[in-house]
């Protein structure tokens, strides 16, 4: 029996009304995040990872509509809560690290002031102490010269430094849940490792739960307790990290793992996933992976999409999941001349 989760997303569906029709970006997305737990959300571009995060935080684009579901956080349903309640939660209980730190910082405000803005809004600090706290935060995210960074404008800092400032902003009020949306895209590899290390350490220190959104499976493998695999707006598999890598049960997960670069594997051995994320407009089969799936059966055309529970914490949305020796069921390597 598991304790009450910190965040429980249940049956979340989101659609976008566009000129070319309704895009059903998320359908029946459900997952939980426990206190202090790090959950990874992985999937290709367009699989709905970011939309999930934006929906939880209530900052979806005006053309988007939440058509069903709940996201219960500390007893409050974030999807139906009023804007005033949400404002109290945002920044203090819930915060987010954005993809591109350069655009997520106000270009004409010194970064120290931006950190102070958050502290003034939420933390109960005396005016004089706000500045000290901001500098302490900059020191905590391992910026070499925090006093200088305090006075600097974002354009005077490197990309990695900006991301550190973003992290300082996000953890300023020790939130219970931190959502990191591709926190290391656009940074070079050594910086990526350092940034992830930092986020991981901060999360561990303050028992902060974290949702790490990425398309890089290797990244979540190292950092996360559990992984949510998404494809075309569906959650296809949820499993503890070790179990997912050892025995993926959904064909898409297996493909995703097979396409991830890892030590001892050359580029030629990597197998790209055939096809593309389907167009989410119009009619789709219940299993949105069907068109790309080598295991598809006629039965896959029939609704509803089954959700199988294969253990205490392992669920998969597939009619014919891979058996435990699943990875051997993959077909012979596909030619990959057309990939990088």
């Amino acid at each position, binding site marked *: 029996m598991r304790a009450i989760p910190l965040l429980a997303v249940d049956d979340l569906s989101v659609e976008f009304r566009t000129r070319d029709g309704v895009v059903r970006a998320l359908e029946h997305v459900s997952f939980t995040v426990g206190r202090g737990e790090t959950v990874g959300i992985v999937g290709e571009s367009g699989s709905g990872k970011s939309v999930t995060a934006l929906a939880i935080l209530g*900052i979806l684009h005006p053309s988007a509509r939440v058509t069903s579901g709940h996201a219960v956080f500390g007893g409050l349903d974030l999807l139906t809560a009023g804007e005033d309640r949400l404002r109290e939660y945002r920044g203090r209980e819930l915060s987010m690290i*954005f993809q591109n730190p350069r655009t997520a910082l106000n270009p*004409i405000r010194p970064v120290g002031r931006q950190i102070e803005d958050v502290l003034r809004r939420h933390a109960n600090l005396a005016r004089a102490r706000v500045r000290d706290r901001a500098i302490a935060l900059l020191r905590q995210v391992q910026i070499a010269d925090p006093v200088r960074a305090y006075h600097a*404008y974002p354009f005077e800092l490197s990309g990695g430094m900006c991301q550190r400032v973003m992290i300082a*902003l996000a953890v300023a009020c020790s939130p219970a849940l931190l959502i990191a949306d591709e926190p290391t895209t656009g940074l070079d590899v050594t910086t990526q490792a350092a940034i992830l290390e930092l986020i991981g350490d901060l999360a561990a220190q303050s028992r902060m739960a974290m949702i790490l959104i990425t398309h890089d499976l290797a990244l979540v493998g190292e950092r996360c307790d559990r992984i949510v695999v998404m494809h075309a707006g569906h959650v296809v598999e949820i499993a503890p990290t070790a179990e997912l890598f050892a025995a993926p049960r959904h064909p898409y997960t297996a493909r995703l793992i097979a396409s991830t670069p890892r030590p001892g594997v050359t580029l030629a051995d990597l197998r790209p996933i055939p096809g593309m994320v389907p167009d989410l407009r119009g009619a789709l089969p219940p299993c949105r992976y069907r068109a790309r799936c080598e295991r598809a059966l006629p039965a896959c055309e029939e609704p509803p999409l089954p959700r199988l529970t294969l253990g205490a914490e392992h669920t998969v949305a597939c009619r014919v999941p891979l058996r435990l020796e699943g990875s051997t069921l993959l077909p012979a390597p596909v030619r990959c001349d057309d990939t990088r």
Partner: protein
Amino acid sequence: MSRLLRHARHVIGENPVTLAAFGLLLVFVLLAIAGPALAPYDPLASDAAHKLEAPSRAHWFGTDQVGRDILSRVMTATRLDFAISLSAVALSFALGSLAGTCAGFFGGWTERIVSRIVDTIMAFPLFVLAMAIVAALGNTITNVVYATAIINLPFYARMARAETNVRREAGYVEAARLAGNVPARVVALHIFPNCLPPMMVQVSLNMGWAILNAAGLSFIGLGVRPPIPEWGIMVADGAAFMVSGEWWVALFPGLALMLAVFCFNLLGDALRDIIDPRRRI
């Protein structure tokens, strides 16, 4: 603050044209403050014995048709012309950018209403509109200020709307909302300051226009009335004497007007550079 001053000095020193513009501005500001005290003669005192005299050692800019010293009148007029244009620009900047920012940020009906009002103002030839406003409200200096403010309003409203629209979905705006800020605070602290640098160029160009507009209205007999010294009226007075060879009556106030407009036009870019921290390298 000292950082801003240092930066301002750097921007001004970087470009001789900017330096000249700031020098010119300084002269005008000095005249606006102390013009009446510095003027060698009483700008209103007529002297029938010395009317229409060419520039001389006693009267550097000559005298007009009733023998008033033109130099004194040009100097005294600076304060009035600057006061009219400065208050008009301040008024239209405040109202225009408020309306434009709201339109750009909230969209929907706010945007539709603001845009239609702006379009309505723009549908008239602006100078004619200003004339009509002054004629309708009454021929006073205050109404010249209002008229000038109204015809300049659309430029600020449109610009603020466009600039806000671009930034409405910027990462830092999203981040500010996520930090739990109310929309008004997001606009005031994060969107508007980022729109300010391009708006500053507009403010400066507009100062020039506003001076021209005020002078233009006085030229056709609206707003400022003789014998109060004002550049527009002085040019209007002098125009009659151009044909008979007394060029100085119109030339010197015209020159002052031209220099003032020129100065503000040059100032625009420098003002933007001072306000925008990204230029501080």
